[in-house]
Protein backbone atom coordinates (compact mmCIF):
# COMPACT_ATOMS: atom_id res chain seq x y z
CA UNK A 1 0.00 0.00 0.00
CA UNK A 2 2.83 2.37 0.96
CA UNK A 3 4.56 1.62 -2.34
CA UNK A 4 1.43 2.43 -4.32
CA UNK A 5 1.01 5.70 -2.40
CA UNK A 6 4.65 6.61 -3.03
CA UNK A 7 4.29 5.85 -6.74
CA UNK A 8 1.11 7.95 -6.95
CA UNK A 9 2.84 10.82 -5.16
CA UNK A 10 5.79 10.63 -7.55
CA UNK A 11 3.48 10.67 -10.58
CA UNK A 12 1.55 13.64 -9.14
CA UNK A 13 4.80 15.51 -8.55
CA UNK A 14 6.04 14.82 -12.07
CA UNK A 15 2.74 15.94 -13.61
CA UNK A 16 2.73 19.20 -11.61
CA UNK A 17 6.37 19.92 -12.58
CA UNK A 18 5.54 19.35 -16.27
CA UNK A 19 2.43 21.55 -16.03
CA UNK A 20 4.30 24.33 -14.25
CA UNK A 21 7.21 24.33 -16.67
CA UNK A 22 4.90 24.43 -19.70
CA UNK A 23 3.00 27.48 -18.40
CA UNK A 24 6.13 29.37 -17.38
CA UNK A 25 8.07 31.25 -20.01
CA UNK A 26 11.21 32.92 -18.74
CA UNK A 27 11.57 36.70 -18.93
CA UNK A 28 13.41 37.97 -21.99
CA UNK A 29 15.67 41.06 -21.94
CA UNK A 30 13.41 42.59 -24.61
CA UNK A 31 10.47 42.36 -22.20
CA UNK A 32 11.64 45.48 -20.37
CA UNK A 33 13.18 48.81 -21.31
CA UNK A 34 16.62 50.07 -20.31
CA UNK A 35 15.65 53.40 -18.73
CA UNK A 36 15.44 53.84 -14.97
CA UNK A 37 13.55 56.17 -12.66
CA UNK A 38 15.22 59.38 -11.49
CA UNK A 39 13.40 59.29 -8.17
CA UNK A 40 13.31 56.43 -5.72
CA UNK A 41 11.08 53.60 -6.88
CA UNK A 42 10.41 52.38 -3.37
CA UNK A 43 8.17 55.32 -2.50
CA UNK A 44 6.31 56.18 -5.70
CA UNK A 45 3.13 58.23 -5.56
CA UNK A 46 0.39 58.50 -8.15
CA UNK A 47 -1.73 61.53 -8.93
CA UNK A 48 -5.17 60.91 -10.46
CA UNK A 49 -6.49 63.81 -12.52
CA UNK A 50 -10.22 64.65 -12.63
CA UNK A 51 -10.52 63.27 -16.19
CA UNK A 52 -9.66 59.80 -14.81
CA UNK A 53 -11.57 60.10 -11.53
CA UNK A 54 -14.17 57.55 -12.66
CA UNK A 55 -11.42 54.92 -12.40
CA UNK A 56 -10.03 56.05 -9.02
CA UNK A 57 -11.01 52.92 -7.11
CA UNK A 58 -9.58 50.58 -9.77
CA UNK A 59 -6.42 52.70 -9.96
CA UNK A 60 -5.83 52.22 -6.24
CA UNK A 61 -6.26 48.47 -6.52
CA UNK A 62 -4.11 48.27 -9.66
CA UNK A 63 -1.31 50.34 -8.15
CA UNK A 64 -0.95 48.14 -5.11
CA UNK A 65 -0.99 45.00 -7.29
CA UNK A 66 2.64 45.77 -8.18
CA UNK A 67 3.81 46.05 -4.58
CA UNK A 68 5.73 43.24 -2.83
CA UNK A 69 6.98 41.61 -6.06
CA UNK A 70 10.31 43.40 -6.22
CA UNK A 71 11.58 45.13 -3.10
CA UNK A 72 12.65 47.99 -5.41
CA UNK A 73 9.11 48.79 -6.60
CA UNK A 74 6.70 50.14 -4.05
CA UNK A 75 3.75 52.47 -4.59
CA UNK A 76 3.01 54.46 -1.48
CA UNK A 77 -0.20 56.26 -2.31
CA UNK A 78 -2.77 57.27 -4.91
CA UNK A 79 -4.04 60.81 -4.54
CA UNK A 80 -6.01 63.54 -6.30
CA UNK A 81 -3.97 66.33 -4.69
CA UNK A 82 -2.35 68.89 -7.00
CA UNK A 83 1.24 67.88 -6.18
CA UNK A 84 3.77 67.27 -8.94
CA UNK A 85 4.08 63.49 -8.59
CA UNK A 86 6.12 61.07 -10.70
CA UNK A 87 3.15 59.11 -12.03
CA UNK A 88 0.09 60.91 -13.39
CA UNK A 89 -3.12 59.31 -14.56
CA UNK A 90 -5.37 61.20 -16.97
CA UNK A 91 -8.47 60.31 -18.94
CA UNK A 92 -9.06 60.98 -22.62
CA UNK A 93 -11.06 59.63 -25.54
CA UNK A 94 -9.15 57.16 -27.66
CA UNK A 95 -10.15 56.24 -31.18
CA UNK A 96 -10.37 52.57 -32.16
CA UNK A 97 -10.02 50.03 -29.38
CA UNK A 98 -7.08 51.62 -27.59
CA UNK A 99 -7.85 51.68 -23.88
CA UNK A 100 -4.73 53.02 -22.25
CA UNK A 101 -1.34 54.49 -23.00
CA UNK A 102 1.79 55.33 -21.02
CA UNK A 103 4.23 58.10 -21.95
CA UNK A 104 7.57 58.71 -20.23
CA UNK A 105 9.43 61.98 -19.71
CA UNK A 106 12.91 63.07 -18.71
CA UNK A 107 13.49 66.42 -17.04
CA UNK A 108 16.20 69.00 -17.73
CA UNK A 109 18.03 71.21 -15.23
CA UNK A 110 15.37 73.95 -15.66
CA UNK A 111 12.57 71.55 -14.75
CA UNK A 112 11.21 71.17 -18.30
CA UNK A 113 9.81 67.75 -19.09
CA UNK A 114 10.73 66.10 -22.39
CA UNK A 115 8.91 63.17 -23.92
CA UNK A 116 11.19 60.17 -24.44
CA UNK A 117 10.79 57.08 -26.60
CA UNK A 118 10.35 54.28 -24.14
CA UNK A 119 11.92 51.52 -26.23
CA UNK A 120 15.13 53.38 -27.04
CA UNK A 121 15.66 55.73 -24.10
CA UNK A 122 18.42 54.73 -21.71
CA UNK A 123 18.49 57.71 -19.32
CA UNK A 124 16.48 58.61 -16.25
CA UNK A 125 12.73 59.07 -16.29
CA UNK A 126 11.24 61.82 -14.15
CA UNK A 127 7.58 61.35 -14.96
CA UNK A 128 5.18 58.83 -16.46
CA UNK A 129 1.81 59.97 -17.74
CA UNK A 130 -0.82 57.31 -18.14
CA UNK A 131 -3.91 58.03 -20.24
CA UNK A 132 -7.04 55.92 -19.80
CA UNK A 133 -9.82 55.83 -22.33
CA UNK A 134 -12.95 57.65 -21.18
CA UNK A 135 -14.83 57.49 -24.48
CA UNK A 136 -18.44 56.37 -24.10
CA UNK A 137 -17.80 53.10 -25.88
CA UNK A 138 -14.39 52.00 -24.73
CA UNK A 139 -12.87 51.15 -21.37
CA UNK A 140 -15.88 52.61 -19.54
CA UNK A 141 -17.97 49.69 -20.81
CA UNK A 142 -15.49 47.02 -19.74
CA UNK A 143 -15.92 45.06 -16.52
CA UNK A 144 -14.15 46.29 -13.38
CA UNK A 145 -11.70 43.38 -13.68
CA UNK A 146 -10.87 44.41 -17.25
CA UNK A 147 -10.49 48.06 -16.27
CA UNK A 148 -8.16 47.04 -13.46
CA UNK A 149 -6.17 44.95 -15.96
CA UNK A 150 -5.69 47.91 -18.30
CA UNK A 151 -4.58 50.19 -15.45
CA UNK A 152 -2.20 47.57 -14.02
CA UNK A 153 -0.83 47.01 -17.55
CA UNK A 154 -0.16 50.74 -18.05
CA UNK A 155 1.51 50.94 -14.64
CA UNK A 156 3.66 48.01 -15.82
CA UNK A 157 4.84 50.27 -18.67
CA UNK A 158 5.62 52.93 -16.04
CA UNK A 159 7.90 50.31 -14.47
CA UNK A 160 9.64 49.84 -17.84
CA UNK A 161 7.92 46.59 -18.77
CA UNK A 162 7.10 46.08 -22.46
CA UNK A 163 4.72 43.79 -24.30
CA UNK A 164 6.33 40.34 -24.04
CA UNK A 165 7.97 39.21 -27.26
CA UNK A 166 7.41 35.57 -26.36
CA UNK A 167 4.07 33.83 -26.24
CA UNK A 168 3.84 33.93 -22.46
CA UNK A 169 0.46 34.29 -20.76
CA UNK A 170 0.94 37.63 -19.09
CA UNK A 171 -0.79 40.80 -17.97
CA UNK A 172 1.70 42.75 -20.08
CA UNK A 173 0.32 41.16 -23.26
CA UNK A 174 -2.14 43.45 -24.99
CA UNK A 175 -5.86 42.83 -24.58
CA UNK A 176 -7.75 40.11 -22.75
CA UNK A 177 -7.78 36.64 -24.23
CA UNK A 178 -5.67 33.56 -24.78
CA UNK A 179 -2.44 35.46 -23.98
CA UNK A 180 -3.64 38.60 -22.23
CA UNK A 181 -4.14 37.84 -18.55
CA UNK A 182 -6.38 39.96 -16.33
CA UNK A 183 -4.00 39.74 -13.38
CA UNK A 184 -0.23 39.77 -12.82
CA UNK A 185 1.28 36.41 -13.84
CA UNK A 186 4.58 34.70 -13.07
CA UNK A 187 6.04 36.04 -16.34
CA UNK A 188 5.20 39.64 -15.35
CA UNK A 189 6.73 39.07 -11.91
CA UNK A 190 9.93 37.63 -13.34
CA UNK A 191 10.24 40.55 -15.80
CA UNK A 192 9.79 43.06 -12.98
CA UNK A 193 12.39 41.28 -10.86
CA UNK A 194 14.80 40.97 -13.77
CA UNK A 195 14.49 44.70 -14.40
CA UNK A 196 14.52 46.03 -10.84
CA UNK A 197 15.91 43.23 -8.71
CA UNK A 198 14.31 40.86 -6.22
Amino acid at each position, binding site marked *: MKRILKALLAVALMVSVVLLSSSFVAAHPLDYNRWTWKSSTTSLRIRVFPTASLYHQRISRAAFNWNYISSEIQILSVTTSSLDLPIEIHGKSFSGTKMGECLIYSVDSKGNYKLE*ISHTYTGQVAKAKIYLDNDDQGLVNCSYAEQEK*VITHELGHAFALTHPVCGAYALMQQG*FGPLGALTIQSHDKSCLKMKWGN
Partner: protein
Amino acid sequence: MKKCMVLICLVVFLFPGCGKEPIIRQNDSDLLILAHSFSDLIDVSDLIIKAKVLPGKKNVPDTEEVGGHTITKLQVLETFKGDVVPDEILTITEEYYQDKDVIWTVGNYLPANENQEYIFFLTKYGANSNWSGMYFVTDLARGKYSLKSSILDNLDTLDSLSNSDLEIWIEPDDEYREWYKQVIEKYCPNN
Protein backbone atom coordinates in the same frame (compact mmCIF):
# COMPACT_ATOMS: atom_id res chain seq x y z
CA MET B 1 31.24 72.96 -63.61
CA LYS B 2 31.51 75.17 -60.53
CA LYS B 3 27.81 76.03 -60.80
CA CYS B 4 26.98 72.34 -61.00
CA MET B 5 29.01 71.60 -57.88
CA VAL B 6 27.34 74.46 -55.97
CA LEU B 7 23.93 73.16 -57.00
CA ILE B 8 24.77 69.62 -55.89
CA CYS B 9 26.10 70.91 -52.55
CA LEU B 10 22.93 72.96 -52.05
CA VAL B 11 20.75 69.93 -52.69
CA VAL B 12 22.84 67.77 -50.37
CA PHE B 13 22.96 70.29 -47.51
CA LEU B 14 19.56 71.95 -47.77
CA PHE B 15 17.40 68.89 -48.34
CA PRO B 16 18.97 66.10 -46.35
CA GLY B 17 15.59 64.83 -45.15
CA CYS B 18 14.06 64.46 -48.59
CA GLY B 19 12.93 60.91 -49.25
CA LYS B 20 13.82 59.86 -45.71
CA GLU B 21 11.60 57.05 -44.42
CA PRO B 22 9.77 57.92 -41.22
CA ILE B 23 10.80 56.06 -38.08
CA ILE B 24 8.12 53.76 -36.68
CA ARG B 25 7.59 53.76 -32.91
CA GLN B 26 5.09 51.66 -31.03
CA ASN B 27 3.03 53.31 -28.31
CA ASP B 28 3.09 51.67 -24.90
CA SER B 29 -0.62 50.97 -24.82
CA ASP B 30 -3.26 48.39 -24.13
CA LEU B 31 -6.06 47.41 -26.47
CA LEU B 32 -9.33 45.64 -26.54
CA ILE B 33 -8.86 42.70 -28.90
CA LEU B 34 -12.17 41.90 -30.55
CA ALA B 35 -11.31 38.84 -32.65
CA HIS B 36 -9.32 35.85 -31.47
CA SER B 37 -9.86 33.86 -34.67
CA PHE B 38 -10.53 34.57 -38.33
CA SER B 39 -14.20 33.64 -37.93
CA ASP B 40 -14.40 36.07 -34.98
CA LEU B 41 -12.97 38.76 -37.24
CA ILE B 42 -15.79 38.21 -39.74
CA ASP B 43 -18.42 38.13 -36.98
CA VAL B 44 -17.36 41.24 -35.08
CA SER B 45 -16.74 43.45 -38.12
CA ASP B 46 -19.69 45.56 -39.28
CA LEU B 47 -18.20 45.97 -42.73
CA ILE B 48 -15.93 43.82 -44.86
CA ILE B 49 -14.98 45.65 -48.02
CA LYS B 50 -12.46 45.94 -50.79
CA ALA B 51 -11.57 49.62 -50.87
CA LYS B 52 -9.12 52.14 -52.23
CA VAL B 53 -7.43 54.56 -49.84
CA LEU B 54 -8.07 58.11 -51.03
CA PRO B 55 -5.41 60.80 -50.88
CA GLY B 56 -5.66 63.49 -48.20
CA LYS B 57 -5.18 61.70 -44.90
CA LYS B 58 -5.61 63.92 -41.85
CA ASN B 59 -3.31 63.66 -38.84
CA VAL B 60 -5.32 64.39 -35.67
CA PRO B 61 -3.43 65.04 -32.41
CA ASP B 62 -5.34 64.05 -29.30
CA THR B 63 -3.14 65.20 -26.45
CA GLU B 64 -1.25 68.44 -26.06
CA GLU B 65 2.07 66.59 -26.09
CA VAL B 66 1.97 63.64 -28.40
CA GLY B 67 -0.23 61.00 -29.91
CA GLY B 68 -3.34 60.94 -31.95
CA HIS B 69 -4.84 59.14 -34.85
CA THR B 70 -5.34 59.57 -38.58
CA ILE B 71 -8.58 60.22 -40.41
CA THR B 72 -8.64 58.39 -43.73
CA LYS B 73 -11.20 58.27 -46.52
CA LEU B 74 -11.90 55.06 -48.41
CA GLN B 75 -13.68 54.49 -51.68
CA VAL B 76 -15.67 51.26 -51.54
CA LEU B 77 -14.92 48.97 -54.48
CA GLU B 78 -16.74 45.83 -53.36
CA THR B 79 -18.82 44.89 -50.32
CA PHE B 80 -18.61 41.46 -48.68
CA LYS B 81 -20.47 42.31 -45.47
CA GLY B 82 -22.49 45.37 -44.50
CA ASP B 83 -24.74 47.88 -46.17
CA VAL B 84 -22.39 50.06 -48.20
CA VAL B 85 -22.29 50.19 -51.98
CA PRO B 86 -19.46 50.52 -54.50
CA ASP B 87 -18.14 54.07 -54.92
CA GLU B 88 -19.48 55.10 -51.51
CA ILE B 89 -16.91 57.10 -49.53
CA LEU B 90 -16.31 56.02 -45.93
CA THR B 91 -14.34 57.74 -43.21
CA ILE B 92 -12.22 55.61 -40.90
CA THR B 93 -9.76 56.24 -38.09
CA GLU B 94 -6.35 54.61 -38.38
CA GLU B 95 -4.56 54.14 -35.07
CA TYR B 96 -1.32 55.88 -35.89
CA TYR B 97 -0.09 59.45 -35.68
CA GLN B 98 2.74 61.12 -37.57
CA ASP B 99 4.81 63.57 -35.54
CA LYS B 100 7.45 65.08 -37.85
CA ASP B 101 9.51 62.09 -39.01
CA VAL B 102 8.18 59.63 -36.44
CA ILE B 103 5.09 57.49 -36.89
CA TRP B 104 3.61 56.51 -33.54
CA THR B 105 1.63 53.37 -34.04
CA VAL B 106 -0.37 50.95 -31.93
CA GLY B 107 0.22 47.21 -31.92
CA ASN B 108 1.43 45.89 -35.24
CA TYR B 109 -0.38 48.45 -37.40
CA LEU B 110 1.26 50.25 -40.29
CA PRO B 111 -0.47 53.05 -42.23
CA ALA B 112 -2.55 52.15 -45.26
CA ASN B 113 -0.99 53.68 -48.38
CA GLU B 114 -2.88 56.26 -50.40
CA ASN B 115 -4.23 55.09 -53.76
CA GLN B 116 -3.64 51.47 -52.80
CA GLU B 117 -6.35 48.80 -52.53
CA TYR B 118 -7.03 46.72 -49.44
CA ILE B 119 -9.54 44.35 -47.92
CA PHE B 120 -10.69 46.09 -44.75
CA PHE B 121 -12.56 44.66 -41.79
CA LEU B 122 -14.23 47.66 -40.16
CA THR B 123 -16.22 48.30 -37.00
CA LYS B 124 -18.65 51.18 -36.68
CA TYR B 125 -18.31 53.70 -33.85
CA GLY B 126 -21.42 54.06 -31.70
CA ALA B 127 -23.77 57.02 -31.83
CA ASN B 128 -22.32 58.56 -28.65
CA SER B 129 -18.68 58.26 -29.66
CA ASN B 130 -16.53 61.24 -30.63
CA TRP B 131 -16.11 59.46 -33.97
CA SER B 132 -19.78 58.72 -34.53
CA GLY B 133 -20.51 58.01 -38.20
CA MET B 134 -16.98 56.71 -38.81
CA TYR B 135 -15.44 53.24 -38.69
CA PHE B 136 -12.23 51.88 -37.21
CA VAL B 137 -10.10 49.01 -38.52
CA THR B 138 -11.03 45.94 -36.48
CA ASP B 139 -8.06 44.82 -34.39
CA LEU B 140 -5.55 47.06 -36.14
CA ALA B 141 -3.25 45.15 -38.52
CA ARG B 142 -5.53 42.12 -38.48
CA GLY B 143 -8.30 44.13 -40.08
CA LYS B 144 -6.25 45.40 -43.04
CA TYR B 145 -4.95 43.28 -45.94
CA SER B 146 -2.96 44.87 -48.74
CA LEU B 147 -3.85 43.82 -52.27
CA LYS B 148 -0.68 45.07 -53.93
CA SER B 149 0.59 42.89 -56.73
CA SER B 150 3.91 42.14 -55.04
CA ILE B 151 1.93 40.13 -52.47
CA LEU B 152 -0.79 38.72 -54.70
CA ASP B 153 1.81 37.49 -57.22
CA ASN B 154 3.65 35.67 -54.44
CA LEU B 155 0.84 33.98 -52.54
CA ASP B 156 2.58 30.60 -52.78
CA THR B 157 5.55 32.02 -50.92
CA LEU B 158 3.56 34.23 -48.54
CA ASP B 159 5.27 32.73 -45.50
CA SER B 160 8.62 33.95 -46.74
CA LEU B 161 7.44 37.52 -47.40
CA SER B 162 8.77 40.01 -44.89
CA ASN B 163 6.56 41.93 -42.46
CA SER B 164 7.28 45.12 -44.33
CA ASP B 165 6.18 43.47 -47.61
CA LEU B 166 2.90 42.64 -45.87
CA GLU B 167 2.68 46.14 -44.39
CA ILE B 168 2.74 45.02 -40.78
CA TRP B 169 5.26 46.13 -38.19
CA ILE B 170 8.27 44.20 -36.92
CA GLU B 171 6.66 42.00 -34.28
CA PRO B 172 6.53 38.34 -35.21
CA ASP B 173 3.02 37.63 -36.38
CA ASP B 174 2.72 34.32 -38.20
CA GLU B 175 -1.00 34.32 -37.48
CA TYR B 176 -1.36 37.35 -39.75
CA ARG B 177 -0.06 35.29 -42.67
CA GLU B 178 -2.56 32.54 -41.93
CA TRP B 179 -5.39 35.06 -41.80
CA TYR B 180 -4.12 36.73 -44.99
CA LYS B 181 -4.37 33.41 -46.86
CA GLN B 182 -7.94 32.96 -45.62
CA VAL B 183 -8.86 36.51 -46.64
CA ILE B 184 -7.60 35.97 -50.18
CA GLU B 185 -9.21 32.54 -50.45
CA LYS B 186 -12.58 33.91 -49.30
CA TYR B 187 -12.72 37.34 -50.88
CA CYS B 188 -10.28 37.27 -53.84
CA PRO B 189 -10.41 33.62 -55.01
CA ASN B 190 -9.37 34.49 -58.55
CA ASN B 191 -6.03 35.96 -57.50
